[in-house]
C-alpha cells in the first residue's frame, strides 16, 4: 500500500477514535447550519435558489475548523517523539506531510458531504444553478486545501498544539482578510499584488461559478508551498 494512504488512514481513524472528528463535525455543521438557515435568514430572501450564503458562512467556519484539525498533526508527533519512529520507517518526509494533508482533506470532504442536504433542499425550493453550486463546493475544497497546508506548516514549526493552532489562524487571517483590506487601501502595483494574495478574493470568484486558471494556480501554489515548507521543517529538524 502507498505510505501516503497508510498514514492518511491511520490519522483519520485516530480522529474518530479520539472524538475529535465528531466534535469538529458537529461544530462545523452546527455553525454553518445556524448561520445559513436561521440567523443569516437571507437565504430565503434572495429571491434566487443558490447556496452563496452557505459558501460565505462555510468559508469562515472552515477557517477555524481546519487549524483545529491540523494543529496536532506534526506538533504532537514531535512532542511525544513518535516523529522519530515515523521518520526512520521506510517513508520520506514528503510522504509523511502528504499523508497528513490527505487525512485532513478527507475530513473536510466528509464535513462537506454532510451539507449535501442543503443543496437538495434549495434545489427543491427553486431552480438552482447546478454548475455554480458545484463550483462553490470546489471553491470550498480548494480553500480547505490551502488552509490545511498552512496549518501543517504551522504544526511543523512547534511541538505545542496550541501554538500551532494560533499560528495557523494568524497566518490564515492575512490570507482571509488582511491582504484584502490592505489592497483596498493601496493603489498601483502594490494594491494589485495584495489583491492577488487575498484568498477570499479568489474564493469569491470560484464560489460564484467562475473558475479561472488564475484562481486554480493560486490555490494550488498555496497548497504546494505550504506542504513543501512543512517538509523542509521536518528535514531541518534532523
Amino acid at each position, binding site marked *: *500500500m502507498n*505510505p501516503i494512504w*497508510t*498514514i492518511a488512514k*491511520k490519522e483519520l*481513524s*485516530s480522529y474518530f*477514535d*479520539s472524538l475529535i472528528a465528531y466534535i469538529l463535525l458537529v461544530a462545523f455543521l452546527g455553525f454553518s447550519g445556524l448561520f445559513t438557515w436561521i440567523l443569516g435568514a437571507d437565504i430565503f430572501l434572495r429571491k434566487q435558489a443558490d447556496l452563496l450564503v452557505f459558501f460565505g458562512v462555510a468559508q469562515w467556519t472552515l477557517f477555524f475548523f481546519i487549524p483545529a484539525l491540523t494543529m496536532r498533526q506534526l506538533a504532537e508527533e514531535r512532542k*511525544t*517523539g*513518535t516523529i*522519530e*519512529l*515515523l*521518520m*526512520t*520507517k*521506510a*517513508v*520520506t518526509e514528503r510522504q509523511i506531510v502528504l499523508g497528513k494533508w490527505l487525512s485532513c482533506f478527507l475530513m473536510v470532504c466528509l464535513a462537506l458531504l454532510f451539507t449535501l442536504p442543503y443543496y437538495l433542499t434549495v434545489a427543491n425550493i427553486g431552480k438552482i444553478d447546478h454548475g455554480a453550486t458545484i463550483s462553490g463546493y470546489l471553491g470550498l475544497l480548494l480553500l480547505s486545501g490551502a488552509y490545511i497546508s498552512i496549518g501543517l506548516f504551522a504544526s511543523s514549526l512547534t511541538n505545542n498544539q496550541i501554538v500551532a493552532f494560533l499560528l495557523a489562524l494568524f497566518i490564515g487571517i492575512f490570507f482571509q482578510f488582511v491582504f484584502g483590506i490592505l489592497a483596498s487601501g493601496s493603489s498601483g502595483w502594490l494594491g494589485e499584488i495584495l489583491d492577488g494574495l487575498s484568498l477570499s478574493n479568489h474564493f469569491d470568484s470560484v464560489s460564484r461559478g467562475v473558475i479561472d486558471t488564475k484562481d486554480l494556480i493560486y490555490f494550488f501554489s498555496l497548497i504546494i508551498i505550504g506542504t513543501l515548507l512543512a517538509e523542509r521543517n521536518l528535514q531541518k529538524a*534532523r
Partner: protein
Amino acid sequence: MDIKINNLGKSYGLQKAVDNISFEVKTGEILGFLGPNGAGKSTTMKMITGYLEPDAGSIEIGGSTNLDISTKKRIGYLPENNPLYLDMPVMDYLDYCASLQGMGWEQIPTRVREMVKVCGLNVEKHKKIGELSKGFRQRVGLAQAMIHDPEILILDEPTTGLDPNQIVEIRELIKKLGREKTVILSTHILPEVEATCDRILIINRGQIVADGTPTTLRKQAQGQQVLRIRIEEGEVDNIFEKLRALTSVAAVDILEKEQNRFEVQSQPEVFSNRDIFKMCVKNGWILSEMIPLEASLEDIFRGLTVN
C-alpha cells in the same frame, strides 16, 4: 548486512555529541554500546537509522552510503524512551508499522500474529497501547522494530522497564536474532552486555574509549594477576615476609591480620599461584583460600569513563 562507520561526527551547538567515531559491525554480530549518560550512544544510533544527519563522516550500510527507502526497509529501530501512539490498539499499531515498512498486505496479518506471539503480547493485543504497563509497552516497541524482519536491528536500551524474567526472555530473543542479523544495542546495564553481546564498544564524551570482546577488555584492564589468599597456621609477619620474597610476586597487602588474609599482586605476565602453593607446602602451612580477582566490567567501565 555490515555497517561501517567512518569518522562520524555530530555537534549540538558548541557541544560535540559524537566526535570522530569509526567502527564496523558484521552480520551475525551483536554489538553492545556502553557509555555514561550523554556519551553519544543515542546520537550515533539516531544517525545510523537516518533520523539525524551527521555533520561529518559517513555511514555505510550494506555497501551503500545513501540511506534511501530500500535501505531503511532493512533497519528495525527501537528509539530511546520507546515513543508510541498511546491511543492506538496494539494490533492496529503493528499493522500500521508493517505497512509503513512496505510489507505487502497479504503478509501483514500473519507477521503481526507472529510478533505478538514472539513478544508475549497475546493477552494485551486488543488493548490500547496507553493502557499497557511499561514492560508491555517495551515489548510493543520491540515488536514494531522487528515486524518487517529487518537485517539490521538498532535497539536503544531495549530492556528498560522489563522485569527480570522478561529481561532474560528478551536477551534470549536478541541472541537468537543476532545469529543471522546485525544487532547494535545500547544499555547501562553491564551484565546485560556481557550476557548478550559479542563485542563491546565503550564510548565517553563522543569518543570510543574501548572496543573488544568482554574477555579481551577484561584482560586489558586487568594487567597483573591479583589473588586473594588465606593461609592458616602460620605467623602473619612471617608469611608476609616469605610472600614478598617470592620472585613472581610484585606486592603483598595484609587484609585481615587475625584471619591471615592477604592480597597478592603478581609480576606482569607471570602467575604466582604455584609459587604460593609450594611455599605453603614447604613451610607446612595450609592454604585454605585462593581467589583470583577478576576486574569486573564495572571496574573497566568506571576506569574508562570517570575522569
